[in-house]
């Protein structure tokens, strides 16, 4: 790719998320950016990854057209398994699923996510959010969790108002004490940078082109930890951008904010 090729924040996030999927893995694929990340991974370095959709679909080839929801008819036609939600959730609870994607309205330094409600009283919220869907399950049960979120101080908070999807609770050992058998966030990809989780705590691993450690510190609601080898996030490859733009030609999901 030539220097200076334009890409959107969403395209960068998708390309980064795609790198988190290894070949042959079984991945719980959400909608929007994670779905497109799965498409990119499949068509680049992970041709035998398998995508599982919580409503009850397994695909070894991405749907041929852009999806607005996982239940769109093109996602069903050509699937290899169309089943029940509980069949897929059973695989997840068994530990058969390598990775899952989720997003959230709020996240804290330990990777706990809130998608339920903003405010101190869940039953009388300041802002009512949609809720868990399968997010709480994926966060609890997948072998590892990939989180994708917009980055600002009101979203990356010292403490979230409600833990919909458990991360590492208050730190190392918490998941085991709760009875969560495995998992936890491995990476948080935001609009500004990439965090890895070390001992149950988010550590900034890279800042996106155009962003910086200082900007991220200013936009993060907790005392930022920064990796010794922090560096700029690798830009999307030309191949990844080609796949993204082929799959989402009008930029419905990947060029929204531009």
């Amino acid at each position, binding site marked *: 790719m030539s220097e200076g090729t334009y890409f959107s924040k969403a395209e960068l996030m998708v390309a980064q998320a795609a790198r988190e999927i290894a070949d042959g893995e079984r991945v719980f694929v959400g909608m929007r950016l994670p779905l497109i990340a799965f498409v990119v991974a499949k068509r680049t370095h992970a041709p035998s990854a398998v995508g599982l959709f919580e409503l009850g679909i397994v695909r070894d080839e991405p749907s041929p057209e852009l999806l607005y929801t996982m239940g769109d008819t093109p996602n069903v036609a050509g699937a290899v398994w169309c089943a029940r939600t509980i069949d897929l959730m059973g695989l997840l*609870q068994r530990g058969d699923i390598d990775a899952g994607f989720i997003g959230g309205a709020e996240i804290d330094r330990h990777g706990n996510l809130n998608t339920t409600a903003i405010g101190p009283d869940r039953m009388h919220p300041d802002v009512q959010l949609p809720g868990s869907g399968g997010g*709480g399950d994926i966060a609890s049960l997948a072998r590892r969790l990939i989180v994708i979120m917009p980055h600002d101080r009101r979203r990356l908070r010292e403490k979230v108002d409600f833990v919909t999807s*458990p991360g590492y609770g208050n730190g190392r050992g918490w998941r085991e004490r709760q009875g969560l058998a495995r998992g936890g966030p491995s990476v948080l990809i935001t609009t500004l940078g990439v965090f890895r989780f070390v001992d149950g705590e988010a550590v900034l691993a890279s800042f996106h082109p155009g962003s910086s450690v200082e900007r991220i510190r200013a936009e993060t609601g907790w005392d930022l930890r920064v990796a010794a080898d922090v560096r700029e996030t690798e830009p999307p490859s030309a191949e990844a951008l080609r796949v993204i733009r082929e799959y989402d030609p009008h930029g419905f999901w990947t060029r929204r904010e531009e």
Partner: protein
Amino acid sequence: MPGKIFSLPESVARFVPDGSSVALGCALEPAIPFAFAHELIRQGRRDLELIGPISDIAFDQLIGAGCVRGVTAAWIGNVSAGLAHAYRRAMEQGVPRRIEVHDHTNFTIAQALLAGALGAPYLPTRTILGSDIARANPTFREATDPFSGDRVLLVPAIAPDVTVIAAQRADADGNTHLWGPWGVSQEAALAAKAVIVLADEIVERAVIASDPNRTIVPGTKVAAVVHEPGACHPSPLQGRYRRDHDFYREYHAATRTAEGQSAWLAEWVTGVPDRAAYLAKLGPRWVALRDYGRPAAEVRY
């Protein structure tokens, strides 16, 4: 038995009194029986307890119309367009009324309905241990797995008064073929006291019996069969019609205010007498969504 064939208004009038618990939208994003939700609104049902995993905008419409006392769900929003405004107004401002929420995840609600279908009192799970959902929903209990000593969450059975299933075809007895994702539809149907089927097509018993593995619920569980083509719009029905993505976006934009919500309901629900009129109002837009897909490979019994 033609005794199970009802019109949509009759099925609501007869089987869904005020205060009923009603599971619908159980296939998640597809096959949502919007026609049924609209008839509940037209008949002014009150104090319903809604049960379902994500519901897309069907629950939002019922909440906005004031039909709902409580919701047992994993997610209430607009899948492709964002938050659900009527749900927000109800929770944040008590408009048009306060509702009681029992938070679930897609897995816990599936387990609750499966327990109901199995006649089991509860299912034990490891999901959402340590989350605030486990604490906020008072129907859950934490316990110790006596085999391993591990912590488990016990999810009690849910048995809806009525489960509404939209499907491609059913016979007059209620034997119903549904293809495409089942979500939690089968558990919800088997767990229910009564099932109402909205069939895109009514077929001879022989069609169902030619492929009994395709049956999602047998007639013996079904109280009413309604012939209601196009019952799921704007959600899709596999092999019949696609999802109307724009409709969700338009609903989102139109319902930002309570006044907008009322106007939307007046236009699309109370302002149309029935589903046929609704589809006619959609006009060429509806016709353009029809998609008969490709045939399944042959199977012989």
